[in-house]
């Protein structure tokens, strides 16, 4: 059996209540070590208050070739944005 440690993806939540964000990857034998290593590598300068790790092979992703069909349809739907609607200034802030 190959003795390379599996690859993990690391997600960190910063100080200010934002969501966990992908910050990088590392190798570790198990989840416990992955968290320890993530703490040592990715939170050395107050970058975070919470860590998630997930083994890279468990992540499913969209295929680059599907970019068009998946994401282009929303480009033409400008009415989904608040700025689409002109509201008279007299109405006040909305």
């Amino acid at each position: 059996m190959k003795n390379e440690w599996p690859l993990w993806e690391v997600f960190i939540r910063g100080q200010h209540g934002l969501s966990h964000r992908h910050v990088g990857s590392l190798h570790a034998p198990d989840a416990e070590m992955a968290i320890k290593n993530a703490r040592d590598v990715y939170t050395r300068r107050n970058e975070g208050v919470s860590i998630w790790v997930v083994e890279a092979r468990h992540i499913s992703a969209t295929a680059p070739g599907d970019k068009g069909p998946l994401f282009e349809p929303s480009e033409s739907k400008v009415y989904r944005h608040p700025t689409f609607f002109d509201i008279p200034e007299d109405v006040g802030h909305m």
Partner: protein
Amino acid sequence: MYAQLIKTARSGIKSRDEMSKQERAFQDKIDADIKIEPRDWMPDDYRATLIRQIGQHAHSEVVGQLPEGNWITRAPTLERKAILLAKVQDEAGHGLYLYAAAETLGESRDELVRLLHEGRMKYSSIFNYPTLNWADIGAVGWLVDGAAIVNQVALQRTSYGPYSRAMVRICKEESFHARQGYHAIMKMAFGTEAQKAMAQDALNRLWFPAMMMFGPHDSESTHSEQSMAWKIKVKSNDELRQQFVDQTIPQIEYLGLDLPDPGIKWNETRGHYDFSDPDWDEFIDVIRGNGPCNVDRMKDRVNAWEDGTWVRDGLLAHARKRARAAAE
């Protein structure tokens, strides 16, 4: 730089007419500054060149720990020791970010490490020079990390997404490295006569090796053209070297040290400093393995890897045993 003399996987540059439809679409993305991401289509030579460059860059970060690690136990104060320890830890992290970027191209970290240990991949020539005393540690942070920043700031705009993101992260941390080095040298340059002499000596010895970090002249750098077209490299060797000289001279002057090269002179017409070439024969010789510390560096790397085998294997065996027990 941290990646010198990277052989582009193809010779010469492909014209648009020679390109397939797929290659043309790829080049269009590069020209429009759209980042290439791991699972996007890319020419085999683009992938191979990137693996070589990112791999060499990663190896440099890791081997770069050795000349500085040498001084952790002998730092002059507890504060300097804590700072140096933090810097050397950062370098390990930088190696990790870069290996991770290379892995997105389908080359495993263990494989890259194996190639380094077999002498089939290189690291930057600068780390084959010794750090003889404490002043060298200051000079390494100031000049070597200073040179690295010049290169890495440019590489934040490289075309490959994961490499570019690794550079952004590294640049944030690297500025601490250069500043702590300059701070240490300032202490010596403004200290006793003996300390000032040590600072001068370190500058004199490390100046030309630092200049070599940017690689050969553009005219000699036969593989750069395709790498520039692919935006794997963003600025040329000579451009980066000039930028480093221009920013470093005022820093030397502030310290009150003598310039390490009699050829350094402000050139009014060019708006840049002129300077002398490093000894390119020495550069080639060091790259070929004959620098003062090549043998020791590789020995230390290989020993560290082999001495750690039982730990890596033990932790993995333990993890597998626990996973099996949980499954039953």
